[in-house]
């Protein structure tokens, strides 16, 4: 049996809208509208979608915080609503926007409290803590109150806190939000290692396709409460023209550059935007080609964001239907 199973899951919320001065009318908003998927043990799945697509709502249903309006949810064969506490023991949860740690306490004290809350045997807890402290370089921070940690430091603490009780499933909601490049890389490396070495199943909800690209072979895209894509990331890129943009600052304004494998999308004085597909040309080749034709001052590469991919899926005429690649 798959570790996580969702079958026709729906979640509706009542919303009160004003009509006239005092009268209010109840309207039902369907945040999740018939979502089905399963996640096998030991896999890492990326979970993306625009704001309000229903990602957080689904995650809350997996934890048992929210009760589905319809459909079936199962985690490790358990119903998270009726067996919330048993499910909680098997889950590690990291919310990027809110802390699971105790604000006033040193990091070490939070870890001690979690040992008692999850009733982790001392030896197991000690071994886990030592491993994560080393992996995430936490030793110098253990005595620091959480409120004095930087966002990146705190996130390392959150990851450790979520893993101390050996969860089977790690749920992450925007764990890299607001982090700098170095801190992001650290989080990604940690996730890759716990998945590889400990076999932890990971569901990673993110806005950052970079996270998914480094970590997950499978991607689930949610939009307006429905799964609009469930499959391999590579396949998605091939299918929906996963285009990147090279932005170059030339020494002086020039006509649009004619470079094989790329087309100029925009010109603004000495700055030009070149769209290209990674299958056709690499960023390095493209940069070299540009440098042959003009003097280059600066450059940057822009990855497409989730919104853009979702938009493209609609443009390609797949609106409303889940796209499941042949298996």
């Amino acid at each position, binding site marked *: 049996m798959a570790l996580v199973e969702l079958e026709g899951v729906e*979640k509706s*919320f*009542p919303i009160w809208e004003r009509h006239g001065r005092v009268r209010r009318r109840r309207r039902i908003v369907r945040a999740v509208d018939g979502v089905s998927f399963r996640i096998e043990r030991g896999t890492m799945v990326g979970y993306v979608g625009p704001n309000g697509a229903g990602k957080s*709502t689904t995650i*809350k249903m997996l*934890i*048992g*915080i*929210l*009760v589905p*309006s319809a459909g079936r949810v199962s985690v490790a064969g358990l119903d998270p*609503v009726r067996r*919330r*506490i*048993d499910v*909680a*023991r098997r*889950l590690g*949860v990291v*919310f990027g*926007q*809110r*802390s*699971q740690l*105790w604000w*006033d*306490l040193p990091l070490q*004290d939070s870890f*001690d*409290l979690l040992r*008692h*809350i*999850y*009733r982790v045997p001392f030896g197991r807890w000690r071994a886990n803590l030592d491993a994560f402290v080393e992996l995430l370089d936490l030793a110098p921070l253990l005595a620091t109150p959480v409120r004095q940690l930087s966002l990146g430091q705190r996130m390392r603490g959150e990851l450790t806190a979520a893993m101390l009780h050996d969860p089977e499933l790690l749920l992450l909601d925007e764990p890299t939000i607001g982090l700098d490049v170095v801190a992001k890389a650290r989080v990604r490396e940690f996730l890759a290692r716990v998945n590889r070495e400990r076999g932890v199943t990971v569901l990673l909800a993110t806005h950052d396709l970079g996270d998914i690209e480094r970590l997950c072979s499978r991607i689930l895209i949610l939009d307006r409460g429905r799964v609009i894509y469930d499959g391999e990331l590579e396949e998605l890129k091939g299918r929906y023209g996963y285009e990147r943009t090279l932005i170059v600052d030339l020494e002086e304004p020039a006509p649009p550059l004619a470079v094989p494998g790329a087309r100029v999308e925009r010109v603004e004085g000495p700055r030009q935007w070149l769209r290209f597909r990674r299958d056709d040309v690499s960023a390095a080749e493209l940069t070299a080609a540009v440098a042959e034709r003009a003097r280059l001052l600066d450059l940057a590469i822009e990855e497409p964001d989730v919104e853009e991919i979702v938009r493209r899926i609609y443009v390609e005429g797949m609106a409303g239907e889940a796209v499941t690649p042949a298996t």
Partner: protein
Amino acid sequence: MAEAAAAFGVYRRLVGARIRSQLQYRLSFALSVTGVALVTFLDFAVILVIFGQIDALAGWSVAEVAFLYAVSSLAFALTDLAIGHLDLLPRMIRKGDLDAMLTRPLGSLFQVVAADFALRRLGRVLQALVVLAVAIALLEIPWTAGRVAMLVVMVVAGAAIFAGVWIAFATIAFWLVDSMEVANAFTYGGSFLGQYPIAIFGAWLRRFVIFVVPIAFVAYFPSLYVLDKPDTLGMPAALQVASPLVGAVSLLAGWLVWQNAVRHYRSTGS
């Protein structure tokens, strides 16, 4: 049993951590405890002013009313110390702290209660103890083992009654965002009503504090027993020793209301 011991261990650690962080600033802690004690003393001054005008209130002397006041205040202060932070429930819900609690393998009410321990409210406990000591010194109570036991029992049962009421009314926060004024009307308001002999209330208010929000069982009924006073209302004598039962029922009711409220929260997410 092992479950309860483990839960108590977690409670002790969570609350211990909160207490340690409050004790980091000793001077500010001492000042706030003293401040709370002084402010709550003004509360009691009202009763002294009333007795400046009259000799007895529905047959109760100043020392007897002071006794009622002290027991009610002490019970309320202990509840406030342990669960007064339930007043912050609307913020916990809004900020998502409650969701974070629901990700852990512990009950939600347990975690909300264990989230804080407002040590600075010790001032209230101190003030109530002082008034209680003075009242007992002034009264000539015919002490028996039963009366001594009842004195302790009524404080504990009274705290349980207040706790049940507090928990039940705090859950309004699951439906309304700014709801604590309503809840406080019953908690702080209840403690105020508990400080007076209910014989001075009108019939409807008397029924309210006996049957709806059972504040009459915090101080009034057990005090009749401890002070060996005749009940001018002519209620059954059994009510005078019913406080522990009422306390247990109140806690149970509070817990049930909480469970229901959390179920509502989990199905609506608001």
